[in-house]
């Protein structure tokens, strides 16, 4: 039997970055807020201390901090018509779990999208003509512009203390920064991180090739920082354990270091951990959310009524919960109708490893941080003329090696046997002198009619609900884009002085077993037209106006950057709309 809890003003589903930001904003507004989080409470000194956090096997290989597939997984296929099979063990992406969400174990690469990314369809159509785009590509404008988001990007960077070098201050291009970025209202709150030798060599080679390299914007801080809420962060010590790991010394921006200590002190905030929301409830009209139903670890089911529902889980879980709650019309690729599940995208990444003469080069590659590195942005978005190349989109390329944890980072030059004495000798010789940039080519992934999310007909979760089914493949446009970027990247690595260069291209079919970032997007996208988007430009659900759906599920397609900066800026943007407009006059913020 479901037990009913006293009503709250706001219920927040998922206490990661966006849930924490929204909780902070709405409690500041005086609302009584409860946040319900599926995973456990987590904090540095108790859950990822420096005593044992540097454990590649436990955290990287065995996925300690992530959701377990037996708790919830998805099914996957490349094409309509193929039988989707369950993802029994994670590979291509890693769904977060627990308080702090992905903010606990991200690399803290804190980018802004390009101004043109937000008006992508309009921009590309104007520049190249509609026929330049592949026929089945379903890219859209976001409905929100870079200029509208700028102040919210800024708010997030000053919350996090982001370390970086500005490239465009109020329209003035700055030496040493990214000249392609949108204008920012002020510099980064802290200077860029230090760059060890390998990254400096990359920057030098890139400059010699005519590019303008700049340090990657980093949420691993170059110096101690007191954030906008008075929270104190420490300097990064370059331990090389960011992605997959929690930061033990308060130097990586996360909800834990930037928001939660201030949030828990507020009398109008409560968090519930280890409680999984299984449904958003609506009234008989289906147009008004009445709250949520969740299940705790003992199996007990609870109803939490609330006036306002914030869905702020990981992108895929947002879409899945909407499908399971029957909110919004499910997308049908055959008829091209419906919205929930539409424009599902990922990231197109690849890398190039560089092997250097070990008698001359020692990079100490373990001295690193999750968002250390030097990047060039010449090939991102529409920063270059795509006309001659026959594809759209792009990404940054950069030497962004996040560490040299030995299970993953003992590489051998092409042609070396995979095992035996020759392998062992090659590992020994190459470990300190190899450049392994991880996601060195970080490209966009645009939307297509046949890449989408719906419910699986066969496989069920532990609550006996259908799994969500992912239908996803790489289209020619992305494969071409990746080939172009990877080759450009390889040229720079070669120019660094590598004796052997090993590019690995991203090709079809999309492979669920190899990691390709956790940047899954779309499925509940924002837009200006309720027939092709799930939420309006304020992330308010078109049909259920007291439901806001945050996160990368709102991206109409993915840009060539890491998404967290934009995800967080959108959360601040939605919070601002709720505080300044929705609460004064509840109901749809946009009428069409």
């Amino acid at each position, binding site marked *: 039997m479901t037990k009913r809890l006293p009503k709250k003003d706001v219920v927040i589903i998922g206490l990661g970055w966006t849930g924490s930001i929204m909780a902070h904003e709405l409690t500041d507004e005086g609302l009584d807020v409860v946040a319900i989080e599926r995973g456990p*409470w987590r904090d540095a000194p108790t859950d990822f201390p420096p005593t044992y956090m540097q454990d590649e*096997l436990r955290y990287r290989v065995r996925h300690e901090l992530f959701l377990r597939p037996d708790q919830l997984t998805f099914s996957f296929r490349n094409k309509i018509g193929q039988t989707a*099979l369950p993802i029994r063990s994670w590979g291509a992406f890693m769904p977060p779990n627990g308080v702090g969400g992905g903010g606990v174990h991200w690399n803290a690469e804190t980018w802004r999208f390009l101004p043109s990314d937000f008006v992508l369809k309009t921009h590309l159509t104007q520049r190249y003509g509609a026929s330049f785009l592949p026929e089945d590509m379903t890219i859209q404008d976001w409905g929100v512009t870079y200029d509208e988001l700028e102040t919210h990007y800024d708010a997030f960077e000053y919350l996090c203390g982001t370390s970086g070098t500005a490239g465009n201050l109020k329209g003035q291009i700055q030496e040493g920064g990214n000249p392609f970025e949108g204008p920012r209202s002020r510099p980064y709150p802290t200077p860029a991180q230090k760059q060890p*030798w390998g990254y400096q060599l990359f920057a030098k080679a890139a400059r010699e090739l005519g590019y303008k390299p700049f340090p990657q914007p980093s949420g691993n801080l170059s110096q101690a920082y007191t954030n906008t809420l008075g929270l104190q962060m420490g300097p990064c010590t370059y331990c090389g354990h960011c992605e997959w790991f929690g930061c033990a010394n308060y130097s990586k921006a996360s909800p834990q270091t930037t928001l939660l200590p201030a949030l*828990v002190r507020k*009398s109008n905030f409560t968090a519930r951990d280890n409680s999984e929301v299984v449904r958003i409830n609506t009234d008989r009209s289906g147009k008004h959310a009445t709250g949520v139903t969740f299940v705790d670890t003992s199996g007990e089911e609870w109803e939490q009524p609330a006036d306002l529902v914030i869905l702020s889980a990981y992108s895929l879980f947002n879409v899945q919960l909407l499908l399971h709650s029957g909110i919004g019309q499910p997308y049908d690729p055959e008829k091209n109708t419906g919205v929930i599940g539409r424009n599902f995208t990922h990231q197109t990444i690849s890398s190039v490893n560089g092997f250097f003469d070990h008698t001359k080069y020692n990079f*100490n590659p373990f001295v690193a941080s999750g968002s250390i590195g030097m990047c060039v942005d010449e090939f991102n978005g529409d920063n270059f003329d795509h006309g001659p190349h026959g594809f759209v989109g792009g990404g940054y390329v950069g030497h962004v090696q996040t560490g040299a944890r030995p299970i993953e980072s003992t590489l051998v030059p092409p042609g070396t046997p995979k095992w035996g004495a020759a392998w062992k000798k090659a590992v020994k010789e190459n470990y300190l002198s190899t450049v392994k940039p991880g996601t060195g080519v970080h490209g966009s992934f645009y939307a297509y009619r046949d890449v989408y999310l719906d419910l699986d007909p066969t496989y069920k979760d532990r609550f006996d609900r259908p799994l969500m089914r992912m239908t996803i493949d790489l289209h020619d446009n992305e494969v071409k884009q990746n080939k172009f970027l990877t080759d450009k990247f390889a040229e720079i690595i070669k120019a660094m002085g590598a004796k052997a260069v090993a590019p690995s291209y991203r090709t079809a079919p999309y492979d*669920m077993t190899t990691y390709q970032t956790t940047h899954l997007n779309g499925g509940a996208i924002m837009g200006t037209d309720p027939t092709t988007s799930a939420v309006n430009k304020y992330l308010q659900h078109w049909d259920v106006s007291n439901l806001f759906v945050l996160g990368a599920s709102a991206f109409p397609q993915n840009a060539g950057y890491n998404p967290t900066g934009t995800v967080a800026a959108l959360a601040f943007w939605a919070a601002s709309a709720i505080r300044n407009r929705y609460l004064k006059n509840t109901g749809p913020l946009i009428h069409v």
Partner: protein
Amino acid sequence: MYDRKTEDCRVLQSIDVEDQGMGQATSQGSALRRRELLTGTACLLLGMSRAGATQILDRLPWEPNAGAPPTAARPGPWQFFTGAEARAMEAVADRIIPPDPDTPGGKDSGCAVFIDRQLAGPYGKQDGLYVRPPFQPGAKNQGAQSKDGPAEQYRSWLGALDHAVSLKFGGKVFADLPDADKDDILKGLESGSLTLVGADGKAFMEQAVKDVQMGFFADPIYGGNRDMVAWKMIGYPGARYNYLDWVDRPNERFPLLPVSIAGRAEWTPRTR
């Protein structure tokens, strides 16, 4: 409704019902629950919810002696392998990583022990993975769809390996062969030119190479990489947390020996 593993972990009934709502589990209360759970090793290895549901309000949860240190591989007898399987595995490990004058091979560095402990633990049993039927064959890029976990697979692989060797070499087992023959067998499996009866030899080689090398480079607390031999070999300084003084030293080798999660010899005072 919740899965069996949380029961194994003896998760306490987590939310006290009081009045019409849940009692306010104070942060101290939740701390105690959390601590209690930290003793459940099954949970630790699974890394799933280690605690029952709690409410957090007023202050950050805290309790002394908090943390979930890793469960170290226990020394002693084989925990998963039979004696014959262990012999075969050690022999395979020693060809994947042969000993040389500077660094021990896969056997002496403990790679087979590592695999044994992993197979005896949650990994071997596919704990935490999605194991609901139906099991259907799929494309390789859809990921493993086997009902069997790694433990069952190793059992069948190693048995089939010795069986194949026995047929080919007159009753000998893999471990008895000269190194050159061992390498030929493994290369045959790798290329697919040699097949096993009732087991996928190619899949075995792929997994064995991965697991042996993983054991070699993982923290020594898991049974392999004995005395951090692999880390010393490549120059990886181990489970450190501070290179702030080494960021600005281009091409200069980091001077300190590696450290394990269990420490290093230098941590213990040596009486004169």
